[in-house]
């Protein structure tokens, strides 16, 4: 038991993250939430949906919504071409695709390396922020993507 417990804490302390770019900013999300990475394809629009919800696609028989994170965060320019990337996430039994500018790398971060977000007003809602990390002179914003996707604000789930 003790052995497995220590492994568990290790797993909690050191995690792998997928990093991606939105405009000039670097973001990271827990790699365990990522199902696959694919190109952007045409979506079926949904009426009365928020602007950042681009529509739905057919992902091997599942009807999956696509959210443009660039529009959510107001960064980058929302162009859609053959280089546009969709990260398909699997969160709480739900599948959601997010559009980003590009996927950069998979990195390993120790919890200790994560700096708490500063207190002053950030454009980004710090409720969804796990922390900031400095990697190779870049600031990486580590996002709690599960919490964000299931929040009412994003309009992806029925309001509770």
């Amino acid at each position, binding site marked *: 038991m003790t052995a497995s417990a220590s492994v568990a804490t290790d797993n909690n302390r050191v995690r792998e993250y997928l990093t991606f770019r939105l405009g000039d900013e670097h973001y990271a999300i827990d790699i365990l939430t990522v199902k696959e990475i694919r190109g952007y394809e*045409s979506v*079926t629009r949904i*009426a009365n*949906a928020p602007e950042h919800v681009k529509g739905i696609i057919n992902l*091997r*028989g*599942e009807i999956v919504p696509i959210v443009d994170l660039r529009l959510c965060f107001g960064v980058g320019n929302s162009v859609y071409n053959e280089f546009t990337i969709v990260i398909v996430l699997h969160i709480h039994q739900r599948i959601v695709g997010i559009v980003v500018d590009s996927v950069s790398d998979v990195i390993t971060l120790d919890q200790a390396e994560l700096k708490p977000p500063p207190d002053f007003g950030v454009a980004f809602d710090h409720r969804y922020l796990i922390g900031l990390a400095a990697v190779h002179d870049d600031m990486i914003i580590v996002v709690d993507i599960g919490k964000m996707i299931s929040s009412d604000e994003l309009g*992806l789930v029925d309001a509770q």
Partner: protein
Amino acid sequence: MSIDMQQFHGVFFEESQEHLDTMEQLLLSLDLTDPDTEALNSIFRAAHSIKGGSGIFGFTALTALTHILEGLLDKLRNHQLAPSRAMLDVFLEATDVLKDTLCAYRQQNSVDDAAIARMKKKLESFQLSDSTVNKPSDDGFGFFDDQPLETPKPADQDPFFGFFDELDASTPAPIIEMPPAEPITTAMTAVTPATGKPPVKKTVDARETASVRVDVEKLDCLINLVGEIVITQSMLAVMAEQLDGKMAEKFQVILDDLERNTREMQEAVMSVRMLPVSSVFNRFPRVVRELSSKLDKEIDLIIEGEQTELDKGLIEKLVDPLTHLVRNSIDHGIEAASVRQASGKPSRGTVTLQASRQGGNIVIAIQDDGAGLNREKIIAKALEKNIAVDNASDDQSVWQLIFAPGFSTARQVTDISGRGVGLDVVKRNVLTLGGRIEIHSVAGQGTCFKIFLPLTLAIVDGMSVSVGNEIFIIPLANIVECLQPDAANIKSLAGQDQLLWVRDQYWPIVSLSREMEIETTIEQPTDGVIVLVESAHKHFALLVDALVGQQQVVIKSLEQHYRRVTGISGATIMGDGRVALILDIESLYENNPSEKQRGYAA
């Protein structure tokens, strides 16, 4: 650890439930005068399995009760005990208590110990009473008991074929306990073809077919994937058409193979979800038996077409409406024996449950040979409730009135049908399954309720329409008519709302492109196509760009990964892999003026 145990529990609960259902069914079909040995064996095995399993998991209440039951059944199958009607009643009661107990364990509620104790007493009383009967002869040779016990029974049941009966009656004993009686055994086997005929029709289906228990989610996933293969296949076919030369021909041959394989695979996978409707029908012998004794009516139940297959999801949702209709037939439909005799009908009533497949539908009929519906009474009741109706209305529309909420022609509320749940609930249930109900009734001859259901819940008949670059599916059930409007029939209201005069009615014109916020070149109703749609509470004329075609589509949930969307009931995947939305007519167009004002201001 605890999770693992839970998994085993789940399997045990499901299996026990199945065993109990089999037991109940076999007990009901048991012929008291000539009990089928194989049936008795099956009942015994079922009880034995439950006892074993419950013992392992420490569900002591189950073990205790099944233990006594098992003991009695063992005696029955060894012909140390003769079955009686009273005994069967108690056994059936015992299966009920066992079901309740199983349910209590499953939901981790407290077990009704009092009921168990009562049941045990009842069962034990048989053991006692019967062992006293058997005592004197038991002291000698146990196996000889059977003959005195059994021989008289078939004999007075069927006096004409005495010689067959004697052989028949003596057979069970020799098989089981008397190896020396070989000549009789051989005689029996020789005779079986002759006497064997009647029992054939009540052969116990000793289902030993190998089966696998599969999570429905896994199945759905499989069905999804096969659907995807079908789409990929058709996309390949489109690409192949653009090829030419020698390769194209070879390619086409392979593609044809692929097409056949995928189609067969799709059919095979879809059929996995299909279950024979017998799993619902089998509960009705019990319902009828109990109701008829409660109401003091003699009723025969005839079941036909129970092998007809239906989607599992549908089957589960059919139980309640069917139970209601069967109860209704017995309680209201079939008259008391004295009334029946007075009108020259046999005193025994008959209820027929029948399932059949008609085209793309499954039809389930509940037919009784009772008094039929009373037209005058229904019309009077409707007028009393301010429901518009007149004497000239045709029968079908009069009968449909009984589905109105709070509509009951029963003079008194009985504990059978007066549970505050009316036929309106039945109708609503059937409608939510995408089905409909028809009633046929002839005064004095009986009533027949016919439920028409789609083959599966996952498919809807739809009309695909285009608006701009998008395709939408309108369920066929909502469509009244499609037409190209005549400019003369388009009227405007307050200079804004447009109405279409057709079928002696004004239909508000609703533009799908505006509702769905889609750009289109079609602005005027006369340039597009109007689809007249109707739902329970709304009717309007939907303006679309063009009709694409009629097809069956597989319904996919939008809410699984997204949220509910007004006006949309789900999505489907078209042949080219694109997603099309299925319209929900009920919520599509808000008739609310303030809502509309906002729409125009925008």
